[in-house]
């Protein structure tokens, strides 16, 4: 496991997401106002860019077909299907957002 220092907090505006590639994974980081969260940037439905979705509370709605993903658990909340995206630990230190990712997880596969 590795912590990646990603970017200054001000680069991710309030209630928006931004994508970043870390260890070959495209990850969407969101600013929820009281905290930052991170999930895979691909919607489990058709791979839509979650970072471009509308954030409401702790959920994001995929811009392609409106799947709603819980940013805390990664579970799809709408429609009622049991699929999910991976979530990643996030911390903020000295105004910089860091994300914890298993490095090159898919390399061995």
């Amino acid at each position: 496991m590795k912590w990646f220092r990603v970017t200054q907090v001000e680069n991710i505006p309030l209630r928006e997401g931004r994508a970043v590639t870390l260890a070959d994974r495209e990850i969407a980081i969101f600013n929820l106002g009281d905290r930052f969260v991170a999930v895979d940037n691909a919607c489990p439905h058709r791979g839509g860019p979650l970072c471009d979705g509308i954030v409401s509370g702790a959920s994001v709605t995929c811009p392609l077909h409106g799947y709603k993903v819980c940013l805390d658990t990664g579970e799809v909340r709408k429609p009622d299907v049991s699929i999910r995206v991976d979530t990643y630990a996030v911390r903020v230190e000295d105004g910089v957002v860091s994300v914890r990712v298993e490095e090159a997880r898919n390399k061995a596969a």
Partner: protein
Amino acid sequence: MEDLVVVGNGMAGIACLEQILSHDRKFNVTVFGDETHVNYNRILLSSVLAGERSTDEITLNSLEWYQQNQIALRLGVRVIDVDPVNRIVKGDDGSVQHYDRLLLATGSRAFLPPISELDKENVFTFRNLDDTKAILEAAQPGAQAVVIGGGLLGLEAARGLQVQGCKVTVVHVLDTLMNQQLDITGGSYLRQKMEQMGIKVLTSRVTTRLLGDGRVEGLEFASGEKLEADLVVIAAGIRPNVDLGRKAGVTVNRGIVVSDHMETSDPRVFAVGECVEHRGQVYGLVAPLLEQGKVLAATITGNKGPTFEGWTAAAKLKVMGVEVFSAGDVQEQEDSDSVRYEDPALGIYKKLMIRGNRLTGVVLVGDAGDSGRYMEWLRTNADLVVRRRNLLFPEPVADTGEGVAEMSDGETVCGCMGVTKAQIIAAIHEKGVNTMAQLKERTKASTGCGSCTATCQGLLKAVAPGYEEETKKLLCKCVPFTQENLRDIIKSQRLKSVQQVLEIYGNGVGCEVCKPALSYLVDVVWCGDHEEDRSARFINDRVHANIQKDGTFSVVPRMRGGVTTPAELRRIADVAEKYNVRMVKVTGSQRIDLLGVHKSDLPKIWAELGMPSGQAYTKGVRMVKTCVGTEFCRFGVQDAIHAGVELERRLENLYTPHKTKLGVTGCPRNCAEVTVKDIGLVGQEGSWQVVVGGAAGKHVRKADLLITVQTTDEALDSVMLFFQYYRENANYLERVYDFIERVGIEKARKETVYAPAAQRKALLARLQKSKVLSHDAWTERETPVNPTQFVQIQPLEAVIQ
């Protein structure tokens, strides 16, 4: 007939007089009122101040009513003396009026706390219509307004002043707002809500002096601390007007003392309303005063029998978006249990005081939806043993009729107007009431604060044979209002951002449905002079391109009227090659679409194209499709190209409820297919037809003729009128053809091209304002709203943990 003199032309006096007139006529009636207005709804003054109602809208009895009932009305005359021996009253205009029966309904006046140098300009009380008008005049946007008094009236005044654009501070002498009605916790929840709205609250401040030379400039507190103020409203409580009671020689304590039959100590003198003291209580609320009026009317007309036996004190704050209700005794007592519920995040606080399985008091902050049920428990002293497990959360009723069936007949449904369930049912059965509008007209129920609307609708649904639900669609469960309501709320409450609307009128969170809709509404209500929040917009409106199935974007530059140049085409070709655009496609709207563009390339592509945004990604004007018209066509009778290009220039860059497609064609052969466009112009020999509401999508609809005009200028103006009318009145995501089906072309004509000149001018002025504040979205390539809007974030570094 005997002479009846009514002193006081307010709600209690006139409501009582209405009851007296409903008995056999026994009196020649004279009414004295020291205000110069006919009877109006005093409890709605705060909504006049908050811009929700005009002064005309709160009139209760028109001049015609006084005339029809043969009442001698003496407006602007204050009664200054009563001579109980000769049975005459004297007016301040020198007039003398004989009475056989005297009805004192003198109400109350504002209490002025002991503050020195109160006599300054821009210092007001908030008690009557003249006060309200004076405050409105002084309440200039940006002014520092201070309200002394954090009770019901003070808070309502504060919100009204804020809506008028003032920066408002409420100064309260105690540590709890609405301390007469709330406990400490309820007061802190209320304080939080007021502060969220942007009203400053200072508690435990004793104002000792007003500062300023002539005009007020500030306040000084007992601590020596000072506060700036451009205007001061004093709302520190009320005191009953009892002077005339004393002069009439009747018993007076705090108020004019009356019996259960509403008699004073003099059989010829009666009193009703806020000036009255009954069993030691003085009431400042409407419902008990109306009840007193009914009893008094029976007594004075010789039908003595009914009695007034007191009323549970109850109060409701009338500030839109802040629900506060209180009744009974709400302070902690040793022999009582308090049952509470709190949700700090939602700002909801509920407390029931229970003694011996009976409710003795209730506080509701943030959600007063159940106030009717608790009032009924208080009023009937209901035994709550079987309900103890469901005090705060009633089991949901499967049958919606059950809720209203559980109410007793005597239960008050509308507290503002004092209308009971039995009266509503009588109106339904005897007067054929079937709709909310009829119910309002017949019974006045739900015409006050409106909080009983749901109960009234429930009653209509359960009882009225011909009830048809008024199916107004709410925008979303996050903000449960119709879009029409929301426009009013945004305007009257001066809400400038999506988040403000959500926080004050919604769940604070919103969703992908309501956020883009609210984004549109705040934009159109303020003509672009709002706080734009890109996070509430769909991705297309953040990056000004249309997202495709693979997460890439499409780029459509604007070519007004579908007219381009060789130079533009060369630049388009160069850009397409340089950025490996996957497909270049000619669209159905006479534009060129570049498909498969990466987000990070968008600003560069826009710069190299050097063309404005074609808005193909948003709810806006997509295009004005044209034929070549008189410019080249041998059949053309109008210059479609120039009219189309000009139209596009005038309407581009604005948001619309849904995408808007326009067309201009130079002759009735209609090569530009404008009769299936949202808005179109059809050229005729010597005239233009303006058509609206065409469709060629899932279904096909031929556009309706709005008007035929002679000149191109008139044609363009007609389109602009209709365009702005559509922007202001259609629901978000309602296409022009759906809008036209809903409102009807006749109404659309009356509200646009056939509207009075002032109305047309105002529509165009608002369109113009929006236009001035709009910009070509692609200029954001140089000044993005956020620096990382288009760039891919690169990680700083990796750190091994």
